[in-house]
């Protein structure tokens, strides 16, 4: 237990260190902010470091072991039919609750001048992630190489780039990282390990990793697809 705490504390130091050094350099050479501002920045950095420490502690103690237990349970022979529904459910609900997806939905609503509703974006992205997680879990279960999913996925993105509306595309591309926050990412990472171990895969580097990768693809494809549908809808209205 104490060992874990020390390890976590060390990784927080390693994580925040570069930022502190960079700012100190800047403050000394260029910025020369007044002490009050420095105090605020120092307090914020300390707060963030404590937060990071507690987060990592919670993840290491509670999240990772239980995520693995869930992965092992749905990877078990008796429950194998649950792989897809459980994966899809986890993908859907974690995206649905993610605050940054709601911000994204607002942006799309505004960029499309209301023709693509907020709620529609939220549903589309959540479904996209649900499909991605389900596909990722199936991939792990059957031991398929990740490139079967990644290569067509990104080729589709590149292809779609030429067809979709510029402003819309801009939002879609930057949306990749927002669908699942740190909570969901770390939990799904652990679930994937559990499934891979339950399936008896030997090399976890090949089989347990690669689930989170698909989640980044989902919002991009969902949004580009939505954009295409909306554009077609507009054309039809114009023609009639």
């Amino acid at each position: 237990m104490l060992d874990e705490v020390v390890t976590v504390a060390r990784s927080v130091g390693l994580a925040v260190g570069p930022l502190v050094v960079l700012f100190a350099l800047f403050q000394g050479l260029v910025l020369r902010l007044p002490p009050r501002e420095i105090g605020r920045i120092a307090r914020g950095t300390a707060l963030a470091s404590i937060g990071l420490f507690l987060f990592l502690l919670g993840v290491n103690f509670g999240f990772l072991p239980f995520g693995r237990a869930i992965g092992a349970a749905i990877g078990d022979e008796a429950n194998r039919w649950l792989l897809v529904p459980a994966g899809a459910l986890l993908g859907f609900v974690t995206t649905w609750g993610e605050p940054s997806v709601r911000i994204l939905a607002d942006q799309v609503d505004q960029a499309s001048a209301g023709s693509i509703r907020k709620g529609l974006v939220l549903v589309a992205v959540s479904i996209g992630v649900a499909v991605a997680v389900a596909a990722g879990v199936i991939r792990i279960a059957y031991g398929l190489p990740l490139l079967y999913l990644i290569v067509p996925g990104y080729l589709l993105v590149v292809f779609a780039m030429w067809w979709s509306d510029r402003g819309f595309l801009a939002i879609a591309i930057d949306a990749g990282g927002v669908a699942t926050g740190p909570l969901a990412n770390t939990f799904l990472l652990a679930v994937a390990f559990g499934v891979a171990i339950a399936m008896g895969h030997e090399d976890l580097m090949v089989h347990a990793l690669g689930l989170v990768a698909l989640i980044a693809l989902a919002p991009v494809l969902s949004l580009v697809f939505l954009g295409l549908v909306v554009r077609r809808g507009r054309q039809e209205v114009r023609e009639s």
Partner: protein
Amino acid sequence: MLALLRAQLPDVVRAAAPLGLVVAALQVTIVGAPAAEFLQFLAGLALAILGMTLLFAGIDLGILPMGRYIGAELPRRGSLPLILLTAFALGFATTIAEPDVIVLAQQVETASGGDLSATTLAVVISAGVGAFVVIAMLRIVSGVPMVYLLAAFYLVGVVLTFVAPPRIVPTAWDAGSVTTGALSSPVILALALGFISVLPKRNAVEDGFGLLGLGSIGAVLLVLLFGMWG
């Protein structure tokens, strides 16, 4: 300070609650783990929620202003090489502090049986983001359309996926997924907007687009290359 925390907590709880509920439902129906383990999960969840709340509050209070100061001051005073150097450093420093980058790196170290250390991977990922933030800055100066650049790098990623050792491929694409988060995105955007504001005849929306996407493909590419030659 308390007000800051109060502002963040609802968002974090809203993000965590669905996960907690699904996990509880799975526990009751199929997992049936010992009660102690489930309680440990709940305790972990509570710690993680508290941690995220403090982290977000800290980012708002200190780290974002820090990014904004540097982003606004630097382009006005510095030369192009200095701006690029800082862009790299900021991209690197904010990515290496992202919570999910840290966790992914730890998990990869476990999965590789210690062959690939968490620190090495975190450094490679962060260097990838930093390098591609530099490319994004150069693009803003040169005016090459972002779409071409993104399409080109995605295609390079697809090609490298076939060429790189299969063991590194899942890690590389996972890395792309965890990079741009609550810490790095706002700071990188602040720097880019500060930079755009000092260039003549630029449109912030058009020029800012794709920065984060470019950062994450940068992490993917560098990890793939590292797997080939590292």
